């Protein structure tokens, strides 16, 4: 054996002993983790059994006195409080009572302290709690976190400030959205809805018109949570001015959501747009907002090379002639194209089948704000 190999062998031997030690240590650690978990679960169960009835008796006329909370239990109480608070969102009485309990048990102070912890998990818990408590004391701190680059923390802080003071938050939240395009659109839309259309409409429209062209496709869908009177003029203005092709479909979605027949001439124009995705959305909107006479404009789309355009056009035609089988059969009999006939047959059958409206379907699958809400 070469001397090199002998030294490697020694290292390997000690390495294998080291491996076994590491494995045993890890196993001990796992068992300790399990023991702590079981203990924590037991403590949480006990605490939950004691506190759940108290926290949920918000509507009771004479609430009982609160039991004392051991310092070690306060964090668990904070978790329970949040769980029940979210569950009781609709009950103002319980929410108000839970706010009082939070003050008496000092979990509000704990939540503020959590914001200064290093653990992201604890910071998140603190942010959610302060939002639920409508706690204004930490407003500047929350705004600072909201501007940070951490995707989770900044979003949770934005949600918190939106809850604490929706009126004051509206402008701030909108400007944060423009600088955080990486936030999940679904969550952003949820926050905007919580703030309310009357508060977000103006700042959002203003921001959108000032935003760089490349940002607009991501921002336009949020207009769906705005007021009719702000959203529609904004998308009309965008479509009037020179624009990127990518903004057309989101704009048409917004138009379709509000359904103002004034926009029908605009939609007719897009039925022949070179982008199949635009034609699809336009056909869907015409089906939703149009009149029976619009069926003629839609019939040529039944022979479109793209299935989605054909399908949406067929749905629109069926939707514009509800309960009028004969008229649909007449249209069908005029069709020379086999694909056009097939797609119309399917749309008619779907129209007859229960639960097959299909107007919510989207060829891209990317989220549509406001869909189905």
């Amino acid at each position, binding site marked *: 054996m070469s001397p090199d190999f002998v030294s490697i062998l020694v290292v390997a031997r000690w390495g294998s002993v080291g*491996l076994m030690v590491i494995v045993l240590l*890890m196993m001990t650690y796992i068992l300790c*983790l399990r023991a702590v978990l079981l203990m924590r679960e037991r403590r949480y169960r006990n605490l939950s059994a004691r506190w759940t009835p108290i926290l949920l008796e918000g509507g009771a006329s004479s609430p009982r006195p609160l039991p004392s909370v051991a310092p070690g239990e306060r964090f668990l109480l904070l978790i329970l409080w949040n769980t029940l608070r979210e569950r009781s969102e609709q009950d103002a009485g319980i929410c108000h009572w839970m706010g009082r309990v939070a003050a008496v048990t000092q979990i509000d102070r704990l939540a503020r302290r959590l914001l200064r912890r290093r653990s992201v998990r604890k910071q998140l818990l603190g942010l959610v709690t302060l939002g639920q408590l409508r706690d204004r004391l930490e407003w500047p701190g929350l705004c600072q976190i909201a501007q940070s680059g951490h995707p989770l923390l900044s979003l949770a802080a934005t949600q918190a400030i939106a809850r604490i003071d929706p009126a004051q938050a509206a402008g701030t939240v909108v400007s944060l959205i423009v600088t955080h395009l990486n936030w999940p659109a679904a969550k952003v839309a949820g926050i905007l809805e919580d703030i309310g259309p009357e508060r977000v409409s103006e700042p959002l429209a203003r921001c959108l018109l000032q935003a760089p062209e490349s940002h607009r496709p991501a921002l336009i869908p949020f207009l769906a949570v705005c007021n009719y009177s702000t959203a529609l003029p904004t998308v009309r203005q965008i479509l009037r001015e020179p624009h990127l092709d990518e903004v057309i479909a989101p704009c048409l979605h917004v138009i379709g959501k509000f359904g103002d027949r004034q926009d029908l001439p605009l939609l007719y124009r897009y039925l022949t747009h070179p982008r199949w995705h635009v034609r699809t959305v336009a056909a869907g909107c015409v089906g939703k907002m149009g009149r029976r006479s619009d069926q003629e404009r839609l019939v040529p789309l039944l022979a479109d090379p793209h299935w989605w355009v054909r399908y949406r056009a067929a749905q629109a035609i069926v939707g514009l002639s509800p309960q009028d089988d004969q008229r649909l059969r007449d249209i069908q009999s005029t069709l020379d194209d086999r694909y056009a006939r097939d797609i119309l047959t399917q749309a008619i059958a779907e129209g007859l089948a229960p639960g097959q409206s299909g107007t919510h379907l989207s060829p891209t699958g990317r989220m549509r704000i406001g869909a189905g809400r």
Partner: protein
Amino acid sequence: MMAFFLAAQWFFLLYFLALNGVYAMLIFRALGGVARYMQSRDVAGLPHLLGGFAPPVSIVIPARNEEANILRTLHSLQQHYPEYEIVVVNDGSTDRTLEVLTAAYSLEPFPEAYRARLKTRPVRAIYQSTVDPRLRVIDKEHGGRGDAVNAGVNIAHYPWVCRVDADSILQRDSLMLIVEPLLEDPTVVASGGTIRVANGCRSQDGLFVEADLPKRPLVLFQVVEYLRAFLYGRMGWSPMNAHLIISGAFGIYHKETFVAVGGYRCDTVGEDMELIVRLHRTLSAQRKSYRITFVPEPICWSTVPDDIGTLRRQRIRWQVGLAESLAMNRGLMFHKEGSFAGWFAYPFTVFFEWLGPVVETCGYLFVIAGFALGIVSLSVFITFMLLAVGFGILLSTCALLLEEISFHIYKRPRHVLMLFGIAVLENFGYRQLNTLWRMAAVFQHLHRGVRARLGRRKQECPA
């Protein structure tokens, strides 16, 4: 002779170090990934917050001779999810699958404008349930699972397609959890879910009730294997956008992207892995911004083989599938746009997953032969064995640790002890057996003609 042994021992040593180095890196990545996931899951509480924004999903279930399972599976698909449809594809069953479905769901023929965007074996008929408007059934000629899913995708209404195997059990919130990455990141084109072993678990009317460990050691070994594969294997690659497989048992795909790359191939036994490798190859070559993600939460429960013959066939099939997936997409390797998948995951899979069994077996044979010939001393022999077994145990223990800091689905302390015992025991026989099967698959694949012996004959792609 001595020179050969010297060269060989250096080769095996370096191979061993490289392999375990990558595993260590994956474990660290997985630890970070799991910690991040748990943070967001803990407080953000996505399922209930995002319920209103979840995209509509078409669930496609390929079913061949599943008369015993299909109703249970459909029952487990009664999901807490706002909007979805179910497409069952009866892939030329020779049993009563279609009759069972027709009786249970009052199926009626439906005049669907079948849109053959993906070529499949001929479709005989499309049925619509009259009792559950969300359910449609395609009856088609047998073409294999990939072909069946392609047919389902052709009639799927919704933009996201979720593939579920007919013998899987989903939890009530599985769909909500698997779409979570799509809501978080608009560049996601596919997302896979974690599969866990259903054997031994309690389920009722097709719904998962409680996790428990199976009694049979063979199945227990697979429990630990699944923990390793999903918790640090996929979780390790996922943050680098480099994992090369989404299990066929449960995964969701952006339909347009799925169709654009040609759907599943039906000339491979590993169509699920092949699709993901192809997605990486195609999308990176097109310089598209995309992500293929993975949800570490245990959301799909699948029955694993409980006899050695079935297990052997499954492992050979997996290894052949892996080899075919790599061979069909060799352009990904070191492609200039291939990023982590092309520069790291693909070569790793070739050298350590595909060739690994051959090298490992040669390593064992080398040490045993050297020991028998007196070239390798007893101390070297013991050290080698201790290292090989020690690393094996360490990797499994890391998976147990990841499980403990995240989901700890096996509730009782005796479960933890039992899994640790299995993590040790699997290194004495089970792992080596697996290596032998996989090595056999490598040679079978190299010499072709494997599929006939597997009972899953190679399917010709429809013209």
